[in-house]
């Protein structure tokens, strides 16, 4: 462990409160209006007033391949839009531009507070399911720019994007869809216990998974999180101030992000690209936080597409490369069988397309001991991932300062 890389702001910034809207297919109110209500509720939950907030951050991407317009307040909600709607003139207002919007924006919030640029930062994420047509269907007649390298041959959208490395994994390691069924069933079993989830009280059996329609082999419809309307917000402040607020603080111990290192066609994710950068991201995360994979009680892995759970398990070191499928089949991530609770919060597959929010929320709820009847006995440390290991990132949280 290289102390030079240790996160200087470790223990200095904490989450003090949160709020989340119901997760629904199509909300009956504009996304911006929901975001304002959720932000106000999160600020109140933290025991603060809107006037106390002097910072905002988010990652406002509309994650579709369908070419829908990103309209602020309608299909996306930026920090600037939210601050203005709340009537705040913030000292710090920012948006994360890359993928892995949750770890990316957590980094911005933590850095702003640790540097003194802000005292109280609202981090929100607003996700929108466009009202008409299919989510990723794109009506283009001409493929220009980057699209010219893929669209004319029918390679388009994230389903084929993830299908290629998924199949590469199946072929290389002799894994099967039967093994992946355990990932999805676990997410849905846990999501079915969560009242705000789109999938509340609707678990999925292994047989239902295996009978599902294939979209881009080996990806079937249940390997993909379902597009939803939903907003979540978290309130960050200094550790000192958080300790004086109503809820137990949850501290940020470190974070790391990955970036693709090889130039590729658009949406071309070879398995080795994912894993090579993923292992580097993981090494940085452990060095930054000063913890190791064995120290994590609540590891929340990203599952917007189910194969990402296997990739994160291996990249982070929860199991050796090529063995995640067997690890999962042996009960390694089954809460019922005493495995790692990597999907205890239901993930994206068990909640809906909330883009890293379920992972962060589960870390917060468990570490602040606010998870109610889902509370895990051992919940001192947590890890929340988002996106792919080579495009996204991860944050390590602790219930006590390290």
């Amino acid at each position: 462990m290289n102390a030079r890389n240790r996160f200087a702001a470790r223990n200095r910034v904490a989450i003090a409160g949160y709020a989340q809207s119901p997760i629904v297919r199509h909300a009956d109110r504009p996304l911006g209006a929901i975001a304002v209500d959720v932000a106000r509720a999160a600020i109140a939950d933290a025991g603060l007033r809107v006037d106390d907030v002097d910072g905002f951050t988010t990652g406002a991407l509309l994650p579709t391949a369908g070419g829908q317009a990103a309209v602020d307040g309608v299909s996306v909600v930026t920090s600037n839009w939210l601050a203005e709607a709340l009537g705040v003139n913030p000292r710090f207002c920012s948006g994360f531009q890359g993928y892995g919007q949750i770890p990316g924006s957590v980094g911005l919030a933590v850095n702003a507070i640790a540097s003194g640029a802000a005292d109280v930062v609202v981090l929100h994420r607003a996700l929108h399911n466009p009202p008409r047509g299919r989510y990723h269907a794109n009506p283009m007649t001409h493929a220009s720019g980057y699209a010219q390298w893929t669209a004319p041959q029918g390679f388009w959208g994230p389903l084929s994007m993830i299908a290629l490395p998924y199949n590469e994994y199946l072929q290389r390691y002799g894994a099967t869809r039967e093994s992946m069924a355990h990932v999805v069933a676990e997410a849905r079993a846990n999501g079915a216990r969560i009242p705000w989830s789109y999938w509340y009280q609707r678990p999925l059996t292994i047989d239902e998974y295996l009978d599902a329609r294939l979209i881009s082999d080996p990806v079937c419809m249940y390997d993909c999180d379902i597009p939803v309307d939903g907003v979540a917000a978290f309130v960050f402040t200094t550790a000192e101030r958080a300790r004086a607020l109503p809820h137990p603080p949850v501290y940020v111990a470190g974070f790391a992000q990955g970036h693709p290192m090889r130039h590729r066609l658009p949406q071309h994710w070879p398995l080795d690209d994912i894993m090579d950068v993923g292992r580097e991201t993981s090494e940085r995360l452990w060095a930054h936080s000063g913890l190791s994979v064995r120290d994590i009680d609540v590891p929340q892995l990203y599952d917007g597409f189910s194969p990402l759970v296997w990739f994160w398990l291996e990249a982070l070191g929860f199991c050796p490369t090529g063995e995640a499928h067997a690890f999962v089949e042996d009960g390694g991530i089954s809460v019922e069988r005493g495995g790692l609770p990597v999907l205890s919060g239901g993930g994206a597959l068990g909640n809906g397309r909330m883009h890293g929010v379920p992972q962060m929320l589960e870390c917060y709820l468990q570490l602040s001991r606010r998870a109610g009847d889902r509370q895990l006995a051992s919940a001192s440390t947590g890890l929340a991932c988002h996106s792919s290991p080579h495009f996204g990132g991860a944050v390590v949280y602790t219930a006590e300062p390290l």
Partner: protein
Amino acid sequence: MTTAKPLPVPDERSAGYWEAAARGELALPRCAACKHFTMPPTMVCPACGTTTPRFTYEVVDGAGTICSWTVVRDAFLPGFQDDLPYMLVDVELDAERGIRMIGRLVDGSAAMLRIGDRVAVTFDTIADGLAVPSFVLTSA
């Protein structure tokens, strides 16, 4: 009437690629500074970092090795509905290690494919003067 597939729009950096494709040849952009191939061409050479790569298109034989594949069963773009299901293969080209392309596999079935199977490039003419590369199996 059949819906048209999206037509590639050649630009300053890609014109050489599409001109070669129309002739039934695969031409890859090669950096004038470091001589490495790059796909797709970009403003900064990923191999050497020059900001003036002055790519020239060089014809390669288009043979390669299958790294992965998928069977597409849902059309997300116009013009592909009648082709469903179709196969896409992720191919590492012999021309340079690490250079990979994705294209239709116009023969064979998913059940018979293995990683490492060999393919050759072929072209599908989709409009006057526009052809799109795809692949055919060359191994038994």
